[in-house]
């Protein structure tokens, strides 16, 4: 059994990358359509990655080379590790809990910060600073959401409230009343709102803001290293979508047998697609980039207050 799991790890990793790239391609087509363009073919991200992989990998003179080269690898690896803890339409490979995932989610962002500081460019430096501020601001509403759900489970007397298995097997909507339902809707919306920041798409892509700081963190990256960061980004979309699905929509189709597993997988991907479309593609084409002060304000004040309100509704429901 353990061998199967070990064998499945690279499979899941590759699957995550492929699904991520595929979504990235669909995302580009949909974004293009919303901008009245035809858009690139679906396989364009694969071609991009191939091209980046065969390009020269430039390491700037000013950088700290070992950190500079390590960070893209670490970033992609940590993103894929999260994937192993998440249900992919079937049981997750590794047993973990929500707190662990919260921590793991920070690692790719931290990698980017360190990458920015180690590249020795002013643009990257500004980008890294921005990424740190961003991280601090969106982490808080995210934590509130996850803890509220765990709190809901605790008060319902369910064992292991933080474990992912518990979350999947007990859909949170079924154990609440009206006000709790509203609270969950609010929390879901907050989580959806954290998604673009986590994925660094346009209203929140300040660390990379190409028109302001010329690519920011990634300013000095090229070739293979850039490809790894790009891959980490697309896998992260899958990861974050899966987290939301696990928390809020862990439903399957309940068809027995091998067809059931396949159907669940497909159903899962459809859910994922819808989430990525709303949380990333649509927001990306609809808004302009915010300023760092505006980002901090949106997350620290608006999102935190809204998520606390959601928590309050759940508390009222439980009492």
């Amino acid at each position, binding site marked *: 059994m353990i061998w199967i799991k070990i064998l499945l790890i690279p499979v899941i990793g590759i699957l995550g990358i492929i699904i991520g790239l595929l979504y990235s391609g669909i995302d580009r087509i949909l974004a293009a359509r919303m901008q*009245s363009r035809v858009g690139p073919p679906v396989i364009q991200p694969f071609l991009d990655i191939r091209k980046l992989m065969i390009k020269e990998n430039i390491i700037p003179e000013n950088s*700290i080379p070992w950190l500079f080269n390590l960070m893209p690898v670490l970033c992609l690896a940590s993103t894929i590790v999260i994937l192993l803890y998440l249900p992919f339409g079937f049981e997750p490979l590794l047993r973990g809990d929500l707190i662990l995932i919260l921590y793991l989610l920070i690692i790719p962002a931290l990698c980017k910060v360190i990458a920015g*500081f180690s590249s020795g460019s002013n643009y990257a430096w500004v980008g890294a*600073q921005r990424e740190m501020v961003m991280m601090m601001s969106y982490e808080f509403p995210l934590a509130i959401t996850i803890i509220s759900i765990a709190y809901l489970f605790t008060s319902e007397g369910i064992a292991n409230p933080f474990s992912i298995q518990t979350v999947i097997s007990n859909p949170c909507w079924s154990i609440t009343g009206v006000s709790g339902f509203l609270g969950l809707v609010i929390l879901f919306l907050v989580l959806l709102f954290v998604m673009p920041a986590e994925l660094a798409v*346009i*209203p929140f892509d300040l660390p990379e803001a*190409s028109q302001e700081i010329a690519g920011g963190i990634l300013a000095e990256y090229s070739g293979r290293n850039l490809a790894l960061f790009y891959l980490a980004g697309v896998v992260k979309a899958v990861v974050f979508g899966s987290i939301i699905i696990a928390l809020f929509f862990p439903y399957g189709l309940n068809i027995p047998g091998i067809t059931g597993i396949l159907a669940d997988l497909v159903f899962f991907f459809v859910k994922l697609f819808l989430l990525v479309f709303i949380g990333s593609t649509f927001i990306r*084409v609809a808004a*302009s980039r915010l*300023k760092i002060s505006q980002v901090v304000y949106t997350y620290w004040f608006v999102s935190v207050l809204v998520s606390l309100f959601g928590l309050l509704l759940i508390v009222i429901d439980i009492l």
Partner: protein
Amino acid sequence: MRKMREKNPTSYELLFGPAHPGSGNFSVRLRIEGERVVSARADPGYLHRGFEKLMEYRNAMQNSVLSDRLCILEPLNWNLIHAEAVDELTQEEIPEKAKYIRVLMVELSRIQSHLIWYGAMSMGLGFDTGFKLAFGYRDYILDLFELITGGRVYPAGYICPGGVRRDLPDSAEGRIRKVMIKMEEMLQRCENFETTTILPRTRGVGTLSLKDAIRLGATGPIIRASGLKTDVRRDDPYEIYPELDFEIPVRREGDAYARCMIRRQELRESINIVKQVLDRMPKEKLKPVKPKLNQKIPEGEVYVRNEIARGEAGIYMKSTGEDKPYRCKIRGPSLLHMIPVLEHLLKGCQIADVPAIYWSLNICPADMDR
């Protein structure tokens, strides 16, 4: 850790341009502390081609072709300024229809230039959709240029001394009217997008008071956004502008948002002007101007001013009776907007505001460097 700190001092220099996704062929050296710009120094010259000198060695018709390249974004307006300068020296009577065509083309070119501005502004703010839509709609106007002048971007001296180089084709009027409907649709779209895009990023950013605006030499939409109602088309009229009915939008705030709004209203006014010109366009056939060699420009000197999309443009032309001008001084609006105004506005703003301010001035490095 120490190594990192040494590499990352608290105050440092950041280059905005020339090879930067948010700038044109132009660079600003920003001295930055944290996220704040302490001082800015413009560093122009990446597009210096020496037009004033080049024009001294070419005759009027060749200069007309050359004047396209003064600013890539609105070649027809520069065509008109050059043609007017020569016309004023030769005192030649321009056919009525040619005047109408000139104004028509210039206003189409203004719409097109403002659309580029909208695209560039959206791009600077990270709003990709606006960029792509604006350039998509601009292409409808480029189709018109292709039909009328024979080239999409460069009209090759379409407006030349003595009139225009070709008559309007018969199908032009209908097509222009159709395109104007499209432009109104685009304006509606800009308005629909406003609350999520331009408004939150530009309001209160880069405020320019009227006193500063006059001292720094701001013209056109920028000074109008600061509260001075001035427009060369109205104050110093040329061609058939006195006969046309159009508003001059003015706002008092003087910030980047006001500048954006002014340009949007100007787009609307330009669409109106195009419609009026089409209504009044004389029906008779126009004899196109053919180039001639050794056409002498009479002795004299003139200073011609025009309102182009970016502000006030002018040509000082001195002729000593040769077929080539003795001296041509070109006054582009961007020289003052890009150096004193930009340096003034960038002082004390955040890095994130730099593209917003830069593009709200709608500057073109080509007509600054010349």
